[in-house]
């Protein structure tokens, strides 16, 4: 009896591995081709038999500046998102102010506005303000990916913190800000991490704002660096795939190291 269930479970595991292999084949292919160098071979072989790092060398030469840009923009977007979203999440979870219901509703709708709409208008606004081709402009625009999500996910968590926790501090004479900073923020650490991680991933993967709000080569995110390769005929796929692999590193690292935060965010984003 036990043996047959064990056998069945093993079969499931094998099927699961096959499914994963099929789904992740493109990721394998990305890594595989990235190790086959910068030649102009007509096709790629199935395994990287002659491993070479030429592709990475070229990618590194082309993309270092863009990677730095992406890093600055993504970290900046995390900072802006958390600074704006955390107090708002606290207020939404604790206070009862008129108009808060409307604000929550607006946040839900905001997540659904197509990015091209925002990009269209921000281009003209940033043009007037001199924010095109600047880090500040990209950071502020990229925070649109993270802020509604961060507010919603953090306020959902903060609602579960017992009110007694802050009330005690308030009785001791602490103002709202003290109670928020020294009690709510430390207790909500996990949801801040989730919100921060996703704000980072959203901004790091951003394509829309990099495409529309930068025009030169000086400030260009890595996603646009890859897009540049894809326009026109690609002569050699090694460097393209190497750049794609490098741009995927944060997602892979976070998936491995921050599994539980990712899972929390993936669910929280949609079903509140």
């Amino acid at each position, binding site marked *: 009896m036990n043996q047959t269930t064990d056998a069945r479970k093993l079969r499931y595991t094998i099927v699961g591995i096959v499914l994963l292999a099929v789904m992740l084949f493109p990721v394998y292919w990305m890594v595989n081709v990235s190790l086959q160098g910068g030649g102009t071979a007509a096709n790629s072989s199935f395994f990287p038999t002659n491993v070479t790092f030429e592709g990475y060398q070229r990618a590194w030469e082309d993309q270092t500046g863009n990677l730095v840009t992406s890093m600055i923009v993504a970290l900046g977007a995390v900072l802006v998102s958390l600074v704006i979203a955390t*107090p708002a999440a606290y207020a939404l979870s604790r206070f009862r102010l008129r108009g808060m219901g409307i604000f929550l509703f607006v946040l839900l709708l*905001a997540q659904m506005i197509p990015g091209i709409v*925002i990009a269209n208008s921000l281009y003209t606004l940033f043009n007037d303000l001199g924010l095109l081709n600047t880090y500040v402009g990209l950071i502020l625009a990229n*925070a*649109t990916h993270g802020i509604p999500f961060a507010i919603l996910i953090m306020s959902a968590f903060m609602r579960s913190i017992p009110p007694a926790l802050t009330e005690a501090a308030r009785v001791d004479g602490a103002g709202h800000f003290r109670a928020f900073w020294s009690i709510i923020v430390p207790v909500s650490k996990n949801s801040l991490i989730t919100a921060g991680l996703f704000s980072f991933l959203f901004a790091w993967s951003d394509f829309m704002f990099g495409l529309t709000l930068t025009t030169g080569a000086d400030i260009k995110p890595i996603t646009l660096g890859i*897009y540049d390769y894809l326009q026109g005929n690609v002569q050699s796929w090694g460097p393209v795939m190497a750049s794609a692999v490098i741009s995927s590193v944060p997602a892979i690292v976070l998936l491995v190291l921050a599994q539980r935060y990712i899972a929390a965010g*993936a669910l929280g984003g949609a*079903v509140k």
Partner: protein
Amino acid sequence: MTTTLAGPAPVVAPGRGADRRRSRARMRERTAQWLFLVPAIAYVLVFFGYPIVKNLVMGSQDYTVRTFVSGEAPWVGLDNYVEVVTSGLFRTTVLNTALFTIGSIVGQFVIGLLFALFFKRRFPLGNVLRSLLLLPWLLPMIAGTAVWKWILDQDGGVLNEALGTIGIAPVHWLTSPDVALVAVVLVNVWVGIPFNMTLLYSGLQNIPDELYEAGALDGATGAKAFWHITWPNLRPVVSVVLVLGVIYTLKVLDIILGLTGGGPANATQTLATDSYRRSFQEFSFGTGAAVSNILIVVSLLFAVVYLRVNKRAVDE
């Protein structure tokens, strides 16, 4: 976008000092509470409210490159909309948007649901495998798009090579107007499966085991159990997943621009890519805004559906 910034209506001042002090204290309290929300409200007004209003206005202006120099954008009423709707391209983009959305949603949902059902069975490594499946969704979309562009390449792509070994002639995945849309749908399905699977999986987890145990006593197992127990209980989650899927698919830009640039011969041009093309490649911001306003209306329709469905899902 009317968000009440001002605090509540002032309390009618009573004659006595103590009352006044108390009401002033309450005012101060209210103000302190609002301060927590002010940055977020200001941000939302500037980065969501303003763009929508501006976009609506631009949709009725002759807003071009000249506008940036002269500052003049003459009012043209509905001319931009007329130009967009009567252009031969409009029917193509609407049809492509519909086909792209329906194709993507059906593919993502069906495969996502099958995956979710499979991973609901407990087996060794199940959870690890399931979480690794999130990868296509977490990667920068343009990175996934890049590798697919090489996989789908008509000459050296691995897909055509694999098909060649079983005797199928090379398919011009990205360069033939007949199949390019199928190719971009395929890639978008690949990106969307993890998201669908994750939400549906959590929905399945919330169906109590007792229901299945009771059903099994009545002879409901296998497909019967699915139709009589799983599906009715999963319905609220299904609606949320489908509506969110539509909203996300309508916005897709990177996959299409990266793979085909909207071509060949506009075969993969959607409302989103056409809006981008008009505004940022032809610098006709007026007609670009008109197209994206049409896109907003479509998205908002689905957003309203989502909010109603989600509310019901939460209430239940």
